[in-house]
């Protein structure tokens, strides 16, 4: 549903043109490239880099305000329910294939998304102007937008070169890895997930563990595809709030709710 709502400009997919309506001034909550022909809103990470990489620095009050507001409301529930690229990874993981969701390097690779956030989203655009480093060199959502635009517009297709090839490799690695590992982009790379994760412990909508009902059966940990133990860390910054653990708990000790 979120994929359809955030990419409601269906005409754009057929015409190979991006939407230029007023809603493009509003940031959507998930990672959705604004160059996607269907996108009706702006990508918050792209918008953040636009301001940071401007020739004359202006603090991005508007974009930062949106990120703080959404984060403080729902934390990483955006990842679980509102992110189109997250949804794509969910679909790929459903395909029967060799699965290796738990491995030794997993917990160390989780820190890489903070490096992506600090370096590619914040520092490099600020230091080297007019270049959105994350969008240019990493973001797979933009690559998908590029594939669509190139297939619909020969002029765009004729200009594709080495950078596009690199981005295709990055996209390919993420998509293939998504067959084996649940949401590898969300776990290891996504700077937006890194930002929202900071809010998980204090967001208005968060998980509540009733310790009087919890018997430590670990049914929640077994079902968690983000490799978290909700009975130990109910609002881990890695939790995308999919709700699988809530449904799995035989004693109803876990609940997702709004609580002030």
């Amino acid at each position, binding site marked *: 549903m979120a994929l359809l709502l955030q990419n409601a400009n269906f005409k754009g997919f057929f015409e190979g043109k*991006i*939407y*230029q309506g*007023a809603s*493009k*001034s*509003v*940031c959507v909550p998930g990672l959705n*490239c*604004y*160059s996607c022909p269907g996108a009706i*809103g*702006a*990508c918050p990470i*792209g*918008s953040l880099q*636009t*301001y940071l990489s*401007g020739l004359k620095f*202006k603090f*991005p*009050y*508007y*974009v*930062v*305000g*949106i*990120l*703080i*507001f*959404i*984060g*403080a*409301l729902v934390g990483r529930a955006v990842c679980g329910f509102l992110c189109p690229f997250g949804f794509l990874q969910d679909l790929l993981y459903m395909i029967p294939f060799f699965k290796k969701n738990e491995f030794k390097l997993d917990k160390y690779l989780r820190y890489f998304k903070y490096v992506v956030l600090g370096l590619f989203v914040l520092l490099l655009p600020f230091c080297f102007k007019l*270049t*959105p480093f994350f*969008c*240019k060199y990493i*973001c797979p959502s*933009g*690559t998908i*937008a*590029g594939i669509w*635009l*190139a297939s619909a517009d020969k002029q*765009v297709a004729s*200009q*594709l*070169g080495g*950078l*596009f090839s*690199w*981005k*295709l490799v990055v996209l390919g690695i993420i998509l293939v890895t998504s067959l084996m590992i649940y949401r590898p982009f969300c776990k290891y790379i996504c700077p937006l997930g890194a930002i929202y994760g900071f*809010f998980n*412990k*204090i*967001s*208005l909508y968060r998980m509540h563990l009733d310790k009087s009902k919890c018997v430590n059966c670990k049914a929640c940990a077994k079902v968690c595809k983000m490799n978290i133990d909700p009975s130990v860390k109910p609002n881990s910054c890695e939790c995308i709030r999919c709700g699988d653990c809530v449904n799995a708990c035989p004693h109803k000790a876990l609940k997702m709710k709004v609580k*002030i």
Partner: protein
Amino acid sequence: MRKRILTISLIAAGIILIVVGIVLKQPEGVFAKAARICMECIGLG
């Protein structure tokens, strides 16, 4: 209690920053970028 104060403060801070950004016409800057094809984003450099 502390969590409650922090949550409400952050929500309020987010709203205030959004309003400040709107007053400074920053949505126009977002629109200017989002309404054009981002060459870097799609891999054209």
